[in-house]
């Protein structure tokens, strides 16, 4: 992990999100965080009016880092303000990281819990909110432990509770450890989970900003989004915008997994070209492997190819290539792993994690998994490809309650486009061309599982 140590405010950091991550094992604790300038952003925010803080966040062009890229300031401006606004208002950190191939939030949760709490406090002050939740994945044991200790440190040091730092601002933060379902990452499903229900997405409107948790105004943002706020307040919106290499503002934690020489995470400017991340930071492909394609932003984004290497990691630019920035964690497909098997793994995951609320997802995804398994085992027919394409259309945005099914079919529809020869070869040669023997063997064992 690249880190930058800068304790003075006068030195404007180029890697703000990881500037608190040092070689010190205790860098996640309050003392170490404050020594490096932690909570300065909150202190500055508390000297400004709520409207002024919101204006600064809007001016920064910060976009939600959970995957959708919705402008944070705009999202927040829908929350009712003023004396007539309903209370309590809620602010929720979405730390339920479970996207296949995404591992960026874990780093921030384990190493910088105070950065998240500071972002949450700045948001709480801005929106005149009363209660914050950190909704964290139950399997992130050490992150949960660090956050629990960090929260206690805050309560012990007047950074949480009543009259925070003598400002008159009151705010409580609770931690909720999820019992585990991918759908909990969808904001309205997350709210249902917090209410102790099955995590099923809600119909919108009403939007959570107006009627969310327990019917009160609620904002849900990703961990990384909150982590940006202390720095925007500390160093200003203009500095934040200047960080990006293309159109989008700020930096982002990018990651690469798969058969590359140096898989990992790096904080880089928004707009860093995809090729630079894979070739330079991840060191290119491991010896003996070639790049076949990659999912640029986790398991629910469309495949891209080496010819897209010049595309900047910018929300709209990736969109122009008909994929998505998603979580910014790239999954690399090598030339020795079967693309049909990869898509089958992903579709099985989404079929399993579907909440079952609407038909294209509950029935469509398992159907797609059955067809893909058939093709992978060499028992497919050419008509199955057409059927898979139809299933992708049925699960398109607008046909479903939430974004799970549309995201689920993104790798499938793009694989059918880019790797169509592979699908057809499975069907015509009646076996998997990648691993004739080992695949059959493993399928036999998987069948035995059922």
């Amino acid at each position, binding site marked *: 992990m690249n880190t930058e140590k800068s304790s003075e405010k006068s030195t404007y950091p180029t890697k703000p999100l990881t500037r608190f991550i040092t070689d010190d094992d205790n860098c996640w604790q309050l003392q170490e965080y404050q020594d490096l300038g932690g909570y300065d952003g909150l202190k500055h925010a508390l000297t400004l009016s709520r409207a002024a803080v919101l204006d600064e966040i809007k001016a920064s062009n910060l976009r939600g880092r959970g995957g959708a890229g919705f402008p944070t300031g705009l999202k927040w401006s829908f929350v009712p303000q003023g004396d007539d606004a309903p209370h309590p208002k809620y602010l929720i950190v979405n730390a339920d990281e479970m996207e296949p*191939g*995404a591992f960026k939030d874990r780093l921030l949760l384990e190493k910088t819990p105070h950065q998240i709490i500071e972002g949450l406090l700045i948001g709480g002050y801005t929106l005149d909110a009363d209660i914050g939740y950190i909704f964290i994945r*139950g399997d992130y044991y050490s992150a949960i432990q660090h956050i629990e200790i960090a929260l206690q440190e805050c309560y012990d040091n007047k950074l949480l509770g009543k009259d925070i730092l003598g400002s008159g601002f009151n705010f409580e933060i609770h931690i909720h450890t999820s019992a585990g379902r991918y759908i909990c990452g969808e904001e309205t499903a997350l709210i249902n989970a917090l209410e102790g*229900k099955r995590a099923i997405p809600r119909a919108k409107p009403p939007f959570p900003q107006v009627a969310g948790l327990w019917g009160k105004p609620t904002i849900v943002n990703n961990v990384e989004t909150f982590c940006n706020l202390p720095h925007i307040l500390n160093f200003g919106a203009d500095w934040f915008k200047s960080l990006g290499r293309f159109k989008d503002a700020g930096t982002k934690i990018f990651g*690469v997994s798969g058969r590359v020489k140096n898989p990992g*995470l790096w904080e880089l400017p928004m707009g860093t070209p995809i090729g630079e991340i894979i070739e330079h930071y991840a060191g290119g492909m491991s010896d003996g492997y070639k790049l076949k394609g990659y999912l640029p932003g986790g*398991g629910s984004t469309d495949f891209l190819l080496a010819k897209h290497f010049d595309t900047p990691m910018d929300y709209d630019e990736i969109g122009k290539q008909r994929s998505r920035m998603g979580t910014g964690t790239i999954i690399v497909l090598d030339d020795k792993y079967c693309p049909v098997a990869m898509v089958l793994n992903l579709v099985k995951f989404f079929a399993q994690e579907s*909440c079952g609320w609407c038909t294209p997802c509950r029935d469509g995804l398992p159907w797609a998994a059955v067809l893909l398994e058939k093709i992978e085992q060499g028992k497919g027919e050419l008509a199955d490809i057409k059927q898979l394409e139809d299933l992708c259309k049925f699960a398109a945005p607008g046909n479903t309650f939430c974004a799970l099914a549309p995201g689920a079919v993104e790798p499938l529809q793009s694989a059918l486009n880019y790797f169509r020869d592979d699908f057809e070869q499975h069907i015509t040669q009646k076996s998997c061309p990648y691993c004739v023997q080992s695949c059959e063997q493993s399928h036999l064992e998987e069948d035995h599982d059922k």
Partner: protein
Amino acid sequence: MTLANEIPTNETVELSDVEKAQIDSLLLKTPYTSGASIDALKIIQNHRGWVSDGSLLALALYLNLPLADLDSVATFYNLIFRQPVGKVVLHPCDGISCDLMGGQKIRQCLNKQLKITNGQTTDDNQFTLIPLPCLGACDKAPVMIANETLFELIQAENLPLILNNLIKEKST
């Protein structure tokens, strides 16, 4: 009360004082009782290993929530077990980043060594095998979680040692 008829059970469970105290502290933090239901189920599971029909009924009575509501929650989430599990629950990752790095082979080795399929418990009640989706450590693939520990860069030949240590850890 018709609650008991919703899920017929002969098992009578009394919540312990410790369980009740932990559940009571949850109730202080939520404006509505249902908000505590997931955490309350986790408390039961922490003390009893899993959530049986009887303990589900005891919890429903204690929280004064409909049993069906509570069961609908208990059956929805991956980490709440409605069946008994072994001493150690193994969660190998079956996400795509692990599979690109040989994760499937690791899971097959576990199947072979333990002579169980996914979701089953060994005859001696030592291990339960429940693969989980992407565990968020993709740069260290393949990975597995067990006993609240994350095992990274797993190699098939190290599995016997890992399993041995896990059981030792639970026995001490």
